[in-house]
């Protein structure tokens, strides 16, 4: 699906104020049971080594400057994958005073700061199942088809 994600992905896990459920599931994906390393996924400890930023949480105001710094530190082409309901849409916190409501608020702020992100990807779930994350990696690598599509239904 994406040229940017063809090679082995080195991911940097960036928690921006999440409740730790998605974070635990990310670790679960790396266990022998689900074994994301089959797809070449490797967790790295610095954004400077990362191809992909795995962003969890609704991005609290407190975390925002650090999030921007971390994303800026990743080398181009940089990709952000927003995980979980909080990362994608702000989740249950989408309109609270202390968060910016997920990755879509972040997109605007990054644009203003002039930080280019080559692609955003979205993986909803609350929390994301480990399988959902594996499926996401497979979708982005073009191994399996994408399942969701937007619908407009008319009630006549």
């Amino acid at each position, binding site marked *: 699906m994406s040229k940017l994600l063809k090679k082995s992905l080195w991911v940097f896990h960036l928690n921006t104020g999440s409740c730790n459920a998605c974070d635990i599931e990310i670790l679960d994906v790396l266990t022998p*049971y689900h074994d994301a390393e089959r797809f070449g996924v490797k967790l790295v400890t610095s954004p400077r080594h990362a191809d992909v930023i795995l962003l969890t949480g609704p991005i609290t105001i407190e975390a925002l400057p650090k999030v921007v710094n971390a994303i800026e530190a990743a080398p181009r082409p940089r990709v952000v994958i927003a995980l979980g309901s909080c990362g*994608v849409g702000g989740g249950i916190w*989408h309109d609270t005073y202390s968060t910016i409501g997920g990755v879509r608020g972040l997109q605007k702020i990054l644009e203003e700061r002039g930080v280019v992100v080559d692609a955003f*990807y979205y*993986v*909803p779930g*609350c929390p994301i199942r480990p399988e959902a994350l594996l499926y996401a990696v497979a979708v982005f690598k073009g191994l399996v088809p*994408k399942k969701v599509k937007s619908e407009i239904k008319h009630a006549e």
Partner: protein
Amino acid sequence: MSEKLKPAKLLVIASKAGRVTKRYPYDEPLLSPDFRGKITIDENLCIGCGACVNACPPNALQLMKDKDTVVLRYFVGRCIFCWRCVDVCPVGAIKGLREFELATNDISDLYVHVVHKKAKCEKCEGEGATQRMLYYVVQKSPIVEEYLNECPDCRRKSFIDSVVKRRTGGVSE
């Protein structure tokens, strides 16, 4: 415990444990029977009442109104899969699915819209609820026919008018 395992011993342990890795994207996922996934809205049943919108904790369901239509919008990206909407829907239009593979590269994939027609008021330019909801209410409780196609404001006015007419001895209706 810290004693090093000989490779031969390791092989024995590994062969006992066997392969634990799931071949997931090419296999069935491990879902428990009570797993909750995304929801689907049956457009043939939904009446656009907004009960689910009130119940939804993260506002993943929203009612958006404009001149002729009421749109019920479902944003999967914000849904927490609590299924409260399934419980509150008075007509059972919402079904919970066991789908969780929602990865996408385009955020507009995550929206579902259900478009309702608004009921038009006979007398003024005003508007009321959806056409569907009107039928639903009429089926549930008998209301006076001539108020049916009016907006709430006109209904109030017509009711007061008819009371005034009765009071003054005029013929109502």
